């Protein structure tokens, strides 16, 4: 089930690629492990950065959510130092089997464009984001330049 659905989703993603996102299995033998890149959205401080992501599916996909994380360091209220992402879509209790990978990826791009300080993973960054937008922008740009530039 998981393999067929992933195959179908991959075919669909190849046919209708997402803007600024490239993703696919890390190697042909294991379709349960995907890797990808997200280009920093141009209307965000992550502009110009290339962020690597790692998606690990389970055999019970799509009934359980995949594990998605950033492998590139990023300064973001909803992404911690380990790259774990706090997004409602991927939470165990909020996951819907009908959710597809392209929706997840789109949600990630949106998260980069519009951080969600209401539900932060990094409270200190969220506080700066709310109180001192300029400082947040600057630090995020610094991080992007330092870690996400090729």
């Amino acid at each position: 089930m998981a393999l067929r659905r992933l195959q179908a989703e991959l075919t669909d993603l190849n046919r209708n690629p997402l803007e600024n996102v490239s993703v696919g299995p890390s190697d042909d033998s294991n379709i349960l492990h995907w890797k990808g890149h997200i280009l920093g959205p141009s209307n965000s401080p992550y502009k110009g950065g290339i962020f690597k992501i790692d998606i690990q599916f389970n055999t019970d996909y799509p009934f359980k959510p995949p594990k998605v994380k950033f492998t590139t360091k990023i300064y973001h209220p909803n992404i911690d130092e380990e790259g774990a992402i706090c997004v409602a879509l991927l939470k165990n209790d909020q996951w819907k089997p009908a959710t597809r990978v392209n929706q997840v990826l789109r949600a990630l791009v949106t998260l980069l464009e519009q951080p969600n300080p209401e539900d932060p993973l990094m409270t200190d960054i969220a506080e700066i984001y709310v109180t001192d937008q300029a400082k947040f922008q600057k630090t995020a740009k610094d991080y992007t330049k330092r870690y996400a530039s090729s």
Partner: protein
Amino acid sequence: MAATGSVYRNNSNIDSSNNGSSNNNSGSSNTTNYNETKDLPISFSATLTEEALYDPRGLQYVEPTQTSLQCSVCCEYFTEPVSAPCGHTFCRACILQALEVRNGCPLCRTKIDPAMLYEVIALSRICDELLVYCPHKELGCNHTCQRIQIGQHLKDDCVYIGTLCREHHKTCPAESVTCPHCETTRARLRHLEHIKTCPQQIIPCTLSEFGCPWKGPRFDLEAIHIPQCPYEAIRGFLELSKSKMEALEQENQHLRGIFHDLRPQVQQLRDQVGQIQESLQLIAEQEQEQAAGSNINNSGGGISFGTLGGFMDMNYHQYQHRPQFSPRIDRRESYDLVSVNGVDNEMEMERQRASTMNRNNSIGAESMMSSGAGAGGVMTPGNAAEAHELLISENERIRSEIETLTAGLASLELKQNMAIMTESMRIQEEVQSLRAVCHGLRMQMHYLLLEQQNLRHHPGPPPPPGSPAGAVGGNQPGLKGSVNGGPSGDSTANGRSLSVSGPPRPRLSDGLGRQDTKL
């Protein structure tokens, strides 16, 4: 796996539906009537055991998937679509599986009671009419038909239907197999073990590799053949020779490898000799021209001899240079002079061969030279080969000289070693005698000190001479070292030390004592 679980669920569904609808069916009881799609869209009946393993959701469609007819869980065309009260439609298997993990619609998370799911007949028909490939497409079946008919195809038409089974049949571990030797029957897995010990199996003698022609049932081997086998008597010898053979084989292999390594080296040497020969020829020609020129002016003998001398000189130089640009030749030379340690025998043999060849050449050269000398005493260097041989003989001469020198060196070294040894023996003896004298001195002093001490502490009775030193050692830290000498040395040292007189110097005695312990 989730997929197989769903298939089984499907099958139970199939069975019940077949039972229920058999009366209505006019045709084959295995194919479900189209009107009965409520229960079963694809007739994967239980009689088709192989086909029962196929996931109906795993069928390959001719048309690419249209999103409107797609189950949002499996992303395939609906198979047995059911709708939930919230209005969302999924494959029956998909929604049941999703509800097992978490009760809620996979799209809107509304709670769903599985009993409330209802079939969507129209959608089911639409999806059943979609064209699919035969599941045996990879095996070669190019058949396409409506999804509803694929069960019929698999049952009646598909020629590849048994392929998987036939392949499996050859290796199925559970299939019962009859042993061809003893006619007993058991599962294949057991048979594979049995065949190793089957008493009826015809096997060759265990010594067949050495030439025993016997063949017979296994149980005869131990009981009848082995005591009679003529090869059994010389088994030890056979095995020994086999192991030797193997060792030789290995050695052979090893030698072959070395030979292969050496071949390019030999070739290289040959090339170098060729080059030298060429250059010599060139020089010889020049010499000849010069000689021809000078012969006109002077008497031939002296000049040609002189040129020969110069020529030899030059050859000598060339010889001297050769080892520098070719280390391999150098190595060969060094072998000739002194045997090289830690070099493979094979390498040595190879070199020896090369050097003997060289020697043969030089002998020929010498003979030619002598014949040339005998003929006229004058040699005209016109022939390149002759010049080359001359060079080789010169080579040989120098080598023998170096050999003599090496021998001389070795004998000199031996002599020197002997001289050093005798000298050191002499010195050792001297040191020994000196040490004895010192020891005597120390003992005497020790005795004197004891005497003195005794006189100081016990003015009454005089102590006996040579009393154990340990008795007073504690009071005389300065004498501690000398205690090692022990009282045994006292009696012998006393007599001799009388001739050597000196003031008692504890420091010296201490030092000597220490030295004594060290030696």
